[in-house]
């Protein structure tokens, strides 16, 4: 099956899945960013509170230390301690001042400081407890102090509580890595998701089209450039198309099978031979009748070259012309074939087959042998009838003219003419009767009128009819009859006709001085069956013609017969009559020695 023509299906815009991927990625990033921000903020607040606590603790401890040092008037230690603590803890302001505001110690060395007075001044109240104030990112703590035995003073500490979010290297590094990683991951994920979602989007579109009724694989295919998902989809479509094609072919074959089976059975039942031939003159199909007519086994014919079977160049040429498309109508030839059973005539008709995908031709074979035999018989009959009728009619005319010319005076001539006319009329009558009988046989209308047939009378009449003729030819005609002849049940006229034909032929084909014997089998006669042998010493019949002489209009090919008239119907009629009675006529003969014709008739005719 050819691969489906793939049309590129590329989404015109990013699909929803693509957008969903992007949105998801953005959300994830947002979450990450929010989490990072909160973490940083929380860390920062935590750090600020920690810083405040640190500053508070420093202020308390420093205050305690200052009180202790000032109790012993050690202001230098106080100044030193203030500087160290301020530096160590990053205090922006770290100042110790008296109640009157005089600064006695400050972290900033440039700040003028006063020496401790002998008597500490009184002043504003320094307050009860530490006062803490957070202003933005700065925290300031005022701690009232009391130097034992001296007086009141105040410690003021100020420091920045804010911790830069990104001041911590670890945070910076972590955030940097996370950020870069997240961006890279996002980019890769977007890219991958975009590619996948494009393919999935295209496939989704194809699925929706398929549900809407699109069935063409070409229309549903997606571009293979969209990745392995698209390739897998296209492969699935191709497989589906292949399966669909297979199913269609199976259905077509299922529908075709019964029709082909019917067609095959119909051809097998035909009495005409049918052969289907391909372009190489090989038989693709042959029915049983064709195998019989071509003298081949049916199984061996399929695939065989028919030109060797047909044995007719004209038919083979007709097949080639039909296969080549030169001839599109039926061409028929009659082909003579010689089979062991004799000559056969086959009408072979060739016609090209009208098919789109392949050529081929059909050969139809019809056995027309019997038709041709009937045609020949009819033609021979017409020719023979014409001849047989013309001769006596010619004699009729001649002898009538002589009779008229003879007048009343020439009695002998008149008598001779009348005799000839009588004979010719009888001959004419017999010929016509034979022809009518032939017609009746052809029409299947030859019927027997069954009655008692007294054979003694029959043979007496025959002897009287043929005695003079035998004398004229100096032929010895003898009748060997048993004392008692059976009484047959049959058609007397036709039995007499049969015996007339046999005896008449014997006399006709026996030369002068010969013998003709009509013998009735006494044994058969006593059993109620008539068996008559008509034996002559005539010209005889060739062995190969002994079976043919009973066919209508057949006359032996002996040149000696050319001078002997005959319709060729006598023996055919005689045998037909014998068989209608349930009997038969057989012959045994030797050329130049003579012939014996045996008539067998049952006592009772089989046919009515």
């Amino acid at each position, binding site marked *: 099956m050819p691969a489906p023509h793939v049309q590129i299906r590329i989404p015109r815009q990013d699909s929803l899945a693509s957008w969903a991927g992007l949105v998801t990625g953005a959300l994830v990033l947002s979450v990450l960013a929010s989490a990072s921000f909160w973490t940083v903020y929380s860390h920062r607040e935590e750090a600020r509170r920690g810083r405040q606590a640190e500053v508070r603790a420093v202020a308390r401890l420093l205050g305690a230390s200052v009180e202790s040092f000032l109790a012993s008037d050690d202001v230098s230690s106080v100044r030193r301690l203030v500087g160290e603590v301020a530096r160590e803890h990053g205090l922006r302001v770290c100042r110790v001042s008296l109640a009157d505001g005089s600064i006695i110690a400050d972290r900033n060395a440039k700040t003028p400081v006063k020496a401790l007075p002998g008597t500490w001044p009184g002043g504003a109240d320094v307050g009860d407890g530490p006062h803490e104030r957070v202003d933005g990112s700065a925290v300031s703590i005022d701690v009232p102090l009391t130097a034992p035995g001296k007086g009141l003073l105040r410690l003021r500490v100020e420091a920045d509580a804010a911790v830069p979010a990104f001041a911590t290297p670890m945070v910076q590094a972590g955030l940097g890595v996370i950020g870069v990683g997240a961006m890279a991951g996002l980019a890769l994920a977007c890219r991958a998701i975009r590619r996948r979602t494009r393919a999935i989007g295209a496939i989704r579109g194809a699925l929706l089209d398929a549900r809407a009724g699109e069935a063409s694989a070409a229309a549903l295919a997606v571009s293979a450039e969209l990745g392995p998902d698209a390739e897998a989809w296209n492969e699935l479509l191709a497989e589906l198309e292949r399966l669909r094609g297979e199913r269609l072919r199976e259905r077509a074959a299922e529908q075709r099978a019964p029709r082909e089976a019917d067609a095959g059975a119909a051809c*097998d*039942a*035909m*009495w*005409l*031979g049918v052969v289907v031939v391909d372009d190489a003159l090989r038989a693709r199909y042959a*029915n*049983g*009748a064709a*195998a*019989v*007519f071509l003298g081949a086994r049916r199984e061996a014919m399929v695939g065989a070259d028919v030109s060797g079977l047909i044995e007719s160049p004209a038919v083979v040429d007709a097949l080639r012309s039909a296969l080549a498309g030169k001839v599109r109508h039926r061409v028929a030839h009659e082909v003579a074939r010689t*089979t*062991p*059973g*004799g000559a*056969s005539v086959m009408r072979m008709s060739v016609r090209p087959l009208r098919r789109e995908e392949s050529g081929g031709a059909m050969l139809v074979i019809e*056995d027309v*042998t*019997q*038709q*041709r*035999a*009937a045609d020949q*018989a009819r033609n021979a009959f017409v020719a023979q009838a014409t001849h047989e009728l013309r001769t006596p009619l010619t004699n009729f005319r001649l002898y009538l003219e002589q009779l008229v010319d003879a007048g009343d005076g020439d009695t002998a001539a008149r008598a001779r003419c009348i005799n000839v006319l009588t004979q010719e009329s009888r001959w004419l009558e017999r010929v016509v009767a034979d022809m009518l009988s032939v017609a009746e*046989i*052809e029409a*299947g209308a*030859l019927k027997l009128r069954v009655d008692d047939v007294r054979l003694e009378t029959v043979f007496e009449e025959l002897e009287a009819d043929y005695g003079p003729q035998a004398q004229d030819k100096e032929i010895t005609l003898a009748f060997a009859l048993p004392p008692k002849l059976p009484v047959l049940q049959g058609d007397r006229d036709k039995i007499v006709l049969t015996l007339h034909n046999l005896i008449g032929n014997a006399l006709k084909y026996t030369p002068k001085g010969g013998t003709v014997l009509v013998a009735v089998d006494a044994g058969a006669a006593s059993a109620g069956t008539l068996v008559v042998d008509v034996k002559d010493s005539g010209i005889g019949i060739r062995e190969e013609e002994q*079976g*043919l002489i*009973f*066919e209508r209009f057949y006359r032996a090919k002996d040149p000696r017969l050319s001078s002997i008239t005959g319709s060729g119907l006598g023996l055919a009629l005689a045998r037909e009559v014998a*068989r209608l009675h*349930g009997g*038969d006529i057989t012959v045994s003969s030797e050329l130049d020695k003579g012939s014996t014709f045996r008539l067998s008739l049952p006592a009772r005719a*089989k*046919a009515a």
Partner: protein
Amino acid sequence: MEIQEHRHGAVTVVRPRGPLVEADAGTLRDCLREVTARCLGRFVLDASEIPFADSAGLEMLAEAGEELASSGQALRVAAPSETLREVFDLTDIAGGFEIFADVQTAVRSFL
């Protein structure tokens, strides 16, 4: 069983004489096959001299009819006796033959 043959034009008429029983069925079958091959199926079985047939004979005739039918031909049976015709009908094998009243009509069917 005596089997005679004669020709009517291009048609061979086969006339067996005697009862068609098991002992003779094979002989007649072989004869019919030989005639079929020789004459391309152009033959008539003249049944006028067959007084009766037993089951083996009927089976042989039915098989001969089937063999001819496979090549689009038919066993043409001419002039069967009334007894034989009844047997054909009773055994329902008459449909496998073409039965004619006489030989002439059977021969004419080849035209």
